[in-house]
């Protein structure tokens, strides 16, 4: 505990001293948040499944780096069966060695009105876009059907990945006045992937989705998206805001395309994710890696069967319980 306190105080002092000329801008209130950095099937037999889960934990008092002080017993895994954590470690995972071209897409459908009453989304995204630096490139857009967008299901701010953070931020800011219609996140993501595929730059392709509900209106299925993303090597990251929907498809899309997913139950958690998002996408990160053995409470495991697992973190230092991390594991054929 004393070491934690020393680390905490040193962090704050370092943050104050390191860059006194840094732009002094504040975000709306943030909250601690955990996200799934990756998951991987290892092996199985008819009664046991072994998989790896990689988790990133972000604390509000850590600005610019991840939580790295959790212990084995601070994590609780829930699902239909019993769990055993076979191994647990926290280590730095190197960032990508190639710059990326990214499309950031928001679900602009009507239900967003109740999710973020203060439009803090636009502030958080503004911060995220300002953090991105060349040679990484970005483009923002929105998707909805029968709403107020000028093009449906996907409207992009521009045709180019031009890193115009001011124009893209202003676009995102004005989007709050065009909230409406039905969700079309899968169709929008499909078109965004097409745009990424067309992009001639020799960069990694990344798609970041900000969603707030299930999509029951799209023609494109999540399986189609996963197949396309895997074929063209498009990492898809999902930030889901709210708690009234199933995370299955979102978690699966992110996991199977090499992206991460965050299930933010409040806008404060979403803001924290955006605050650190550029770093998570483009730099090295401290990641908890768990090897988990699961014995289902009923039924036999076979290729093709899927299971959903949630991981909860009880932080002994802050006494806080984080948002759940969702993993969808499918046993390959």
């Amino acid at each position, binding site marked *: 505990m004393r070491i934690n306190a020393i680390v905490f105080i040193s962090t704050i002092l370092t943050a104050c001293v390191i860059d006194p000329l840094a732009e*002094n*801008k*504040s*975000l*709306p*209130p943030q909250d601690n948040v955990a996200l799934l950095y990756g998951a991987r099937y290892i092996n199985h037999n008819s009664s046991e499944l072994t998989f790896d889960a990689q988790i990133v934990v972000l604390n509000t008092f850590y600005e610019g780096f991840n939580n790295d002080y959790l212990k084995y017993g601070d994590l609780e895994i829930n699902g239909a069966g019993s769990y055993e954590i076979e191994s647990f470690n926290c280590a730095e995972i190197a960032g990508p060695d190639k710059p990326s071209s990214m499309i950031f897409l928001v679900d602009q459908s009507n239900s967003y*009105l109740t999710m973020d*009453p*203060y*439009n*803090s989304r*636009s*502030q*958080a995204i*503004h*911060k995220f876009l*300002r953090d991105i630096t060349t040679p990484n490139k970005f483009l923002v857009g929105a998707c909805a059907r029968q709403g*107020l967008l000028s093009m449906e299901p996907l409207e992009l701010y521009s045709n180019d990945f031009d890193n115009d953070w*001011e124009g893209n*931020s*202003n676009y995102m*800011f*004005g989007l*709050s*006045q*065009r*909230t*409406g219609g039905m969700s079309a996140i899968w169709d929008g993501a499909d078109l965004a992937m097409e745009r990424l595929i067309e992009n001639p730059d020799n960069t990694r392709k990344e798609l970041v989705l900000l969603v707030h509900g299930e999509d029951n209106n799209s023609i494109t299925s999540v399986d189609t998206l996963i197949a396309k993303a895997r074929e063209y090597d498009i990492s898809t990251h999902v930030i889901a805001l709210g708690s009234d929907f199933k995370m299955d498809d979102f978690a699966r899309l992110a996991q199977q395309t090499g992206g991460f997913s965050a299930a933010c139950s409040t806008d404060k958690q979403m803001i924290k994710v955006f605050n650190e998002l550029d770093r998570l996408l483009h730099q090295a990160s401290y990641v908890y890696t768990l090897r988990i053995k699961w014995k289902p409470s009923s039924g036999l495991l076979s290729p093709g069967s899927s299971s959903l697992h949630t991981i909860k973190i009880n932080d002994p230092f802050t006494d806080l319980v984080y948002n759940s991390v969702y993993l969808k594991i499918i046993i390959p054929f």
Partner: protein
Amino acid sequence: MKRGRVILTISIVLCSSFFSFGQRVNVGFTFQYHILKQVKVDAEVIEGAHSYSLYEVTDNRWKFFSAGQSIIIGTVVQLDYKRFYGVIEPSFDLNTYNYTVHYPLSPEKKERLNFQTLFLQVDLPLYVGFQFGATNLLRYSVFAGAVMVFPYMLENSFQSQAFESVQQDYFNSSDMDNILFNGKKYGNALVGFCLHFASLGKVDIRYQHRLGSPGERYKVAFQSLGFGLTYYLPLNLRNKKIYYED
């Protein structure tokens, strides 16, 4: 700093020259009240200086009272030479601005935010006038010059219509720093029309326009219109002639 000293030196030299040529020196008090103001930001969206908020520029109009007020109390030294006169008015100025922006929340709802700035400042107007009409009692004049402004205290705040309890969390009261204000000295251009009452005093209407903008990113125009009342002390400091000669 160096520039300020140069201006001060020139001012003293000019005042000295006026004394040597002046037909009459009047000393008195002035009270001014600027109630019609305009703050005009030449942008559609303002990015907050200390938050990641963006604000819609929707209200650049001239306004009575609601865009702010200036209450000025100072001293006057006026030197008359034929039709011309030169004035220096060291004054204390309680200068307020109130600028309204909008923050969109949904297609139907926008949050209205008022950024308020209060300056306590020392004003140093220097201007010359030309008198063009006279009776035994009244003279008319127009005048023009500049006002050096030295803010020495600055406060800012903002009010939100809807989010009274959370406004400090979602917006920053200093978001207009270096956009609508900063603590640096600045200059105003000054023109006005004046009605003189013999050697008793004068009433004027004056227009001021800030030279330059507080920050570099956004071009912001500050204009105000107000009136001034000046009372001359009954002192004959240098009484050659009371009125000008044609």
